[in-house]
């Protein structure tokens, strides 16, 4: 799992779950950038594959911490100061000696829950997939 992977899991994690799972990793730290709620402009493409255009914004919270010289950046979707700080602390933990522990206790379970939810919705969607049947017209 590389940094892009874990930051992506943290950004998409449900806030309550992330905050609870990250609590044991709350190391003493210096706040480099206090949690800030902002927006990002989400882009789409004309006809799905053509020229980019600005679709609309979404809320994002970010935070940066320094844990004993290791800088952790947290970005989360939505508005949660605590979740952004938790994400930054986990980012720092993942770069240090507690990486394996944080991966097992925070990242893997969050990813597994997300994938399970997604599989459940996909299975419901597929159950509404139309199976066409052809009427025998008796022409042969």
């Amino acid at each position, binding site marked *: 799992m590389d*940094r*892009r992977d874990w*930051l*992506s899991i943290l*950004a*998409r994690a449900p806030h309550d779950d992330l905050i609870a799972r990250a609590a044991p990793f709350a190391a003493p730290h210096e706040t480099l950038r206090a949690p*800030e*709620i*902002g*927006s*990002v*402009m*989400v*882009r*789409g*493409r*004309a*006809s*799905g*594959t*053509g*020229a*980019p*255009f*600005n*679709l*609309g*914004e*979404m*809320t*994002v919270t*970010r935070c*940066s911490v320094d844990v004993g010289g290791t800088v952790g*950046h947290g*970005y989360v*979707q*939505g*508005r949660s100061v605590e979740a952004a700080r938790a994400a930054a602390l986990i980012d720092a933990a993942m770069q240090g000696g507690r990486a394996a522990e944080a991966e097992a206790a925070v990242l893997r379970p969050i990813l597994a829950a997300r994938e399970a939810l*997604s599989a*459940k*919705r*996909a*299975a*419901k*969607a*597929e*159950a*509404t*997939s*139309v199976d*066409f049947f052809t009427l025998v017209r008796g022409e042969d």
Partner: protein
Amino acid sequence: MYVATKGGEVAIDAAHAWLAEERRGDAATPALTDAQVTGQLTLSVARVMVEGALYDPDLAALAIRQARGDLIEAVFLIRAYRTTLPRLGYTDPIDTGAMQCERRISATFKDLPGGQVLGPTFDYTHRLLDFALAAEGLEPTTTREGPVPPKPRVSGLLDREGLMEPAEEGGVPGDVTRTPLSLPADRATRLQVLARADEGFLLSMAYSTQRGFGRTHAFVGELRIGAVVVEMEIPELGFGIEIGEMVVTECETVNQFTGSGVAPPQFTRGYGLTLGRCERKAISMSLVDRALRAEELGEETGAPAQDQEFVLMHSDNVQATGFLEHIKLPHYVDFQAELELIRRLRREAGERREAAE
């Protein structure tokens, strides 16, 4: 003309207090929560998000509660809040081809790779009021386990045969939240304006093209609803991450032809994309997008839906309601002038009549 007026503070305070009480409704009935609104009034939430142009279901739910269910008022609240947020960046364009579809249908091909997935649609319901709706106990939802077949774009299937006009390339798109709209607007700017436009307005504009005011002969090539991943480059990291996930609705229409002496005829495209589940709006948007391309495609113009100024300058319900509703606010001085004018005209007319007699 506006003149500062004083007074009325006590009345305004009393009005606000009563508003809060009316909003709460009967105190014996439990108050609504944001979770109830996001979970059970999902489509209202989607409408407030897309017209507010800010994806945040919890905020939209709060706005709906605060606005007593008036969705345009809720959109107004979201727009006002949005202006207070620092802009942290622009994302990569979302890849709707990789959408996890909860619905995906085509009106042009029956057997398409990945199948016709109906999803939780109203389409085949009887539209009869269900008086048992409040009752407990749901039928269990059926599932079909196993691998999910990929769902390639329908327009891609036509592309392969060269039957579809190519999707045009483009650079950095204009942003109407940063630079005011100026006309004529390019397609990227138009799509941004249409994406945040009032659903009712777009629906009527689209309907007008179907009835003959700028006909485009649209087929819904594909309509898909589902979750997409949002990726963004993080400057301090120097690489991109998945920064979130959102449900969007996409509609691509296949329309009648363009072609020239040198180029053979090809189908043309109309496009609709919305935040959240907004099927009616996405279809409307794709029809209006296509209508607004009439001039570039060398078609006859003149219908309302083909007129950029008419469509783009009147589609925003916050702007429209702001200007419309301001006429109920005090215009005492303007009206005083009107009163004096009409009294003078009547007096003068009377004098002329007397003089003639």
